[in-house]
């Protein structure tokens, strides 16, 4: 008896501590998710929904060219944006850690401002840069390089990738920067001291030790960008059409909640497998390290 009492008390305490987050996830994620899952197995009939189990929605998703294409398009756009964001962030984080320590706080503040700054405002800023009467076209026209404004800048995959990269760069930068902050400078110097030149230090020490941050940043950006709905709606056009927009349309215009749900679940599973692949990759890289 004596022995069980403290255990049950700590259990109760643990339950109490976990309650808010559990409740939150339950109400706002698990339950709606479960409802959607149910919908995905039901069937639209006219303007009502028939509550009979069917796999037809999933079959439609997996056999319709459009759905496969937009899902792939989402992945391509997400991967490109994540890759670009990492490519931009890595040298910046490297520079802030090793060369520009004096400007560190100023630059971090600017990056933070860009995170909290309006999401829509930045999208419209890009629209006005890339648009028919946008900044780029104005410059090109003024310089006499083109006779008519270029129309292919906006409403395509390229515009979506550029905008998404800009929107989510901070989410790639912060984990990479944090990895650089955790990098012990003595370790870098020890490598120099033991005979490694600058390039060898980079690929044997700096890169492997900051790689977890790179992967984390890549994953954040990839997930945010792949599932973004606003950018593709406002500037996607045809080639920039993403699955999130198609899903939203199923719930809105088409009023086909079952198909929308099935599309959403296929997409979630695709993303989850991409995520697991990256996690596996990072484990593998960590274990191998940068040794001989």
């Amino acid at each position: 008896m004596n022995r069980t009492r403290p255990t049950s008390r700590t259990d109760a305490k643990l339950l109490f501590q976990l309650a808010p987050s559990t409740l939150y996830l339950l109400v706002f994620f698990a339950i709606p998710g479960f409802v959607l899952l149910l919908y995905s197995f039901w069937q639209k009939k006219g303007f009502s929904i028939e509550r009979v189990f069917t796999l037809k929605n999933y079959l439609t998703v997996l056999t319709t060219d459009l759905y496969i294409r937009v899902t792939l398009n989402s992945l391509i756009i997400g991967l490109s944006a994540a890759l670009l964001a990492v490519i931009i962030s890595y040298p910046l984080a490297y520079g802030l850690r090793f060369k520009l320590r004096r400007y560190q706080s100023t630059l971090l503040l600017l990056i933070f401002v860009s995170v909290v700054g309006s999401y829509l405002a930045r999208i419209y800023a890009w629209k006005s840069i890339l648009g028919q009467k946008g900044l780029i076209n104005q410059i090109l026209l003024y310089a006499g390089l083109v006779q008519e404004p270029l129309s292919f800048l906006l409403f395509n995959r390229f515009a979506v990738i550029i905008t998404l990269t800009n929107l989510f760069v901070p989410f790639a930068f912060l984990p990479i920067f944090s990895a650089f902050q955790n990098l012990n400078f003595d370790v870098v110097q020890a490598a120099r001291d033991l005979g490694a030149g600058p390039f060898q230090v980079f690929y044997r020490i700096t890169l492997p030790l900051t790689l977890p941050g790179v992967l984390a940043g890549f994953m954040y950006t990839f997930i945010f960008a792949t599932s973004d709905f606003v950018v593709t709606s406002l500037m996607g056009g045809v080639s920039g059409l993403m699955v999130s927009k198609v899903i939203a349309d199923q719930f809105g215009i088409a009023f086909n909640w079952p198909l929308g749900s099935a599309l959403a679940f296929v997409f979630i599973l695709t993303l989850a497998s991409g995520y697991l692949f990256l996690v596996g990759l990072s484990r593998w890289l960590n274990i191998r390290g940068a040794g001989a």
Partner: protein
Amino acid sequence: MEEFSVKIEAVTKRFVEIVAVQHFTLDVKRGEFISLLGPSGCGKTTLLRIIAGLETSDQGRIVIEGEDMTGQTPEKRPVNMVFQRYALFPHMNVFNNIAFSQVLKKRPRQEIQAKVSEMLALVDLDGYQNRNVNELSGGQSQRVALARSLINQPKVLLLDEPLGALDLLIRKQMQLELKRIQRHLNTTFIYVTHDQEEAMILSNRIVLMNKGEIVQVGKPEDLYRLPETVFAAHFIGETNLLEGNVTRINAKGMEVEVGGLRIKTRLHPKVKVGMQVWLSIRPEKIDLAADQPDDPPNRVNHRNDLPAIVKTRTFLGSSMNYEARLGNQRLMNLVTSAEAVSYQPRDKVRISWAKEDTVVLID
């Protein structure tokens, strides 16, 4: 072959507002274990980093084995460094940490394996090659760091307070290990520490530093017996410091007046009558005896013999520490054997020490 392993020639290093190393000149002999000793901020670590090439000097130059190192990058210098906080590569196991420099040199796999095994045996870590470095204790980590540097067969090993992060017991053990390894390999060791006891235990010579400059260089026993400045007397070992004026000088010694007391001292070449000086008397040089009023004072001409009152008594196992108040209110620390006759606080005693043990210092 050059006689000196490292020649430090008039090296000066300034950071934005402070001078870290000031016109520093020192020759280090081959196979010598030399310590740079001083309080934190005295420039000893900066100097070590300049030798390693991790820091550049503003003036002066470093010559290692006859070769001017000016402009040489760290990876090209025949020295290796052991860092205070180990600085092991966290993403590599023990083997890959130690093998690092040899992998860079593209040595054959078998040779590397043999060398790493030899190093592991040297630092007493046989069987640890596959361990993750995060699983090691502080002492083990520092052994790996040592092996990682020594495998490269540096001409000079630089050690930056390598035992500073370890607890006392491990530190004592590692001191003996370091000394054994240094004797075994006969590599030149330049060792930075702020711990005077550690410097005494390990070094052939100690370079005492303060504010970026050399205070005194010498064998540990010379630094202890004959400090040249108040700083040296104070920094190395315990001592009693008395301030006074020189009243008499003859061929055998001097007399210094300290707050009304006349104290006999050894000679100092630069001191003249009337000069203000400091006297340093080590606690273990002072004898303690019962006060016998019928005995005339100054019984022996070459000893100082003064009445005092015991203030405190501290038992330290092998020894007994006393604080005794001299007539002029000055406290003196002294050490006797724990087996000697023991006195109580407020006991009237006589304290005495040899003229030769009174070292005169000019500040």
